[in-house]
């Protein structure tokens, strides 16, 4: 009885949006001052603005990760690439290089990291998990070497604009994320890139038989994922006005993977949902903010997060939903 579900329930975004809405409503009702948006110096402030701003790195990483996962791969190195790009940016800023250099070099390094991953996966044929694990471990080491094991501090207002700047009341970083998203959406849907990515993810052998060059497509997506991490690295490093090779972007690859999966893109590859990944990133950040705002003790936050994430994943699985409704119907009837 597949027809029983109205179209809206079958939309890939339905369950994650529903969950995000529930989370926000819960907060607005029960968390003090949650829904309040203040205007200070012509800038918007408040919990909701905070969630939007803080989810930008995950959105950026999630965008790259979504394409990588859609090809049936994974990119574990993004957290480490953040550290590399942040370290280079901080060093250049400390030594007073002009802004275009401070921006361009870290991004170039991030892009090369991505190409390296793509090379290992697509050309050499190493499993994506292992191939990107190499840079996940060594990338942070490279960043530490660059910084000489120290935390590099800098002060460069024009560079710091990335995280501190505002346009029309909204943080600059939000425009940045929106621009990247819009660009990816355009490139994947106005060229055949999106179709080829999905095709490779669903059936690599058949894709080869229709003449799709998986090697170049994979190189593109891993390179792009690296670039996204590079942008996130600049953002995070300007936030603390320094490079902390050990901690910056730590475990963010996990959040990016999580956001992608919550957004409806399957880990096995195939159809991908960029908007879903954005919703996923917002859910993760809202959850974190909620937990902190409600005074859940720090050690318990991860457990709470895990429980919530498991429930979202289960709710999104149509198999689970049909079993559940079968149980509720009491007669073992299958949906």
């Amino acid at each position: 009885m597949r027809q029983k579900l109205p179209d809206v329930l079958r939309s890939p975004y339905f369950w994650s949006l529903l969950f995000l809405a529930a989370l926000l409503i819960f907060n607005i009702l029960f968390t003090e001052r949650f829904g309040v948006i203040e205007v200070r110096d012509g800038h918007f402030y408040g919990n909701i603005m905070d969630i939007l701003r803080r989810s930008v790195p995950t959105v950026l990483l999630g965008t790259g990760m979504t394409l990588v996962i859609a090809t049936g791969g994974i990119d574990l190195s993004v957290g480490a690439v953040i550290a590399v790009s942040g370290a280079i940016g901080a060093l250049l800023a400390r030594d007073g290089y002009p802004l275009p250099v401070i921006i361009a070099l870290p991004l170039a390094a991030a892009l090369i990291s991505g190409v390296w991953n793509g090379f290992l996966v697509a050309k050499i044929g190493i499993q994506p998990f292992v191939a990107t694990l190499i840079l996940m471990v060594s990338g942070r080491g490279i960043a530490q070497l660059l910084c000489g094991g120290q935390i590099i501090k800098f002060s460069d207002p024009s560079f710091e604009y990335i995280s501190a700047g505002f346009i029309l009341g909204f943080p600059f970083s939000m425009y940045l994320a929106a621009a990247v998203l819009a660009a990816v959406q355009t490139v994947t849907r106005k060229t055949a890139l999106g179709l080829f990515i999905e095709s490779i993810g669903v059936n690599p052998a058949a894709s080869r038989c229709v003449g799709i060059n998986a090697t170049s497509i994979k190189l593109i997506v891993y390179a792009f994922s690296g670039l996204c991490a590079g942008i996130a690295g600049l953002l995070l490093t300007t936030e603390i006005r320094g490079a902390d090779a050990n901690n910056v972007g730590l475990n963010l690859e996990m959040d990016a993977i999580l956001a992608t999966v919550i957004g409806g893109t399957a880990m096995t590859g195939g159809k991908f949902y960029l908007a879903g990944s954005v919703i996923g990133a917002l859910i993760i950040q809202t959850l974190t903010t909620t937990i902190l705002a409600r005074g859940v003790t720090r050690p318990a936050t991860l457990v709470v997060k895990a429980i919530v994430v498991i429930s979202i994943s289960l709710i999104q699985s149509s198999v689970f939903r049909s079993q559940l409704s079968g149980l509720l119907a009491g007669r073992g009837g299958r949906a």
Partner: protein
Amino acid sequence: MDYLLETSRIGISFPGVKALSGIDFRLKAGEVHALMGQNGAGKSTLLKILSGVYRQDEGRIFLKGREVNFSSPTEAQHSGISTVHQEINLIPTLSVAENLFLGIQPRTSSGRLDWKKIHRDSENILSRLDLRIDVSEQLNSYSTAIRQFVAIARSLLFSADVLILDEPTSSLDKDEAAKLFAVIRGLKRDGLGIIFVTHFLDQMYEISDRATVLRNGEMIGCFEAAGLSRMDLITAMVGDAQAARAENEPSKRRARTSQAPGDERILEASGLSRSGAIEPIDLSIGKGEVIGLAGLLGSGRSETARILFGIDAPDKGDVRICGSRLKPCSPIDAIMAGMGFCPEDRKTEGIIGNLSVRENIILALQASRGLRRMLGREEQAAIAGKFIEALSIKTSSAEEAVKNLSGGNQQKVIIARWLASNLRVLILDEPTRGIDVASKSEMQNLILSLADQGLGVLFISSELDEVARCCGRAAVLRDRRKIGELSGDELSPDGIMRMIAGGESAA
């Protein structure tokens, strides 16, 4: 006389199909007994019953005169029936010795693994097969042939009476196969009964004493290999009903042969070869021609198609489309030149299941246009709509995921995919396999009408009457070698079988 292994009228059904019925299979001690038949004849089902994977619905099995009822492969193995599978069931990253004794390791009195004994016994058992290798090396450092021997050695550890070899030579070269046969002869002298499944006729004659032939789940007969002519063997495997059926529909083929094939050669392959796949082969397809590639399973049909289309690289030889040479091992180059390929295995190499019918249809065209020149959404819908109608593809809409379509309709989607690109020559590998009878003749008619529009078609099928009916000319393959071409009145199921059998005098 007493048989080592004897079945009495065994049969088994799966939902909707009678897979085997009334099989009286008799294996003597000290003989090599070939089990022959086409795909779907029931060979593997019979082997699975004998080795305890399936339980028969009817009939009885006797091993050394005692009735047996195996509930698991392990039980069958302990009773003395060992199977060496086609895809060898060993663990590549363990050592040879570990593989041999996995699950049956001897222990010392203190309960530890007795490695000395494991290594000594491993060497002993392998020397019985005349194989002297370092048993502490990882299995995957050895060739397929040696792995095959290790698998056989392992089954000997279970003091086997009956050894089942399921296509043991399919991935071996000539020398390796010869070595395997020497081992088999040795085991035969030791009094084992050996069941040998192969698709290679020559090998059947070389090694077997008797052969049992199955067709459509029934036993056609048990023959002395020495007194069995190739023609009789092939007729037993393929059936002469096919020949009779083809006689009823001569009109279409007449139409095909009467049409003068265009002079324009669309596809030409010369000296194309790949070790372990096909010996050097020449093929040529003209405009509007349907050329068949006929042969039994394992004769190199699909391998040839895969090399032509650039999925596998040839060792030697080249492929030309309308005179220009194709880059080897590059499907996109073949597609750009105007080739299309419907693979034998529709699910793994044909359809892209989760994508829609529309996307599946436009994919090859889009791939040849490249990344940037994206077909517009309306254009895509128009192309998909056109072919859904032209080929009457049954789908709820162009946006339906292609995996939800029936086999015949999936096949049409794949054909539509190639028709939508700039197609000059289409390779069809078993295009009618696994689709129902009505769709089958629809598919055949579709192929003929495409050829009438000027397309060159390479038609691969294991159903000989289908080849005879659809093709103007057919190349016949046997044991990975092209042995000749047939056309006109000679191109009949009977004629093909005669040609395959032709090597008789040489054998």
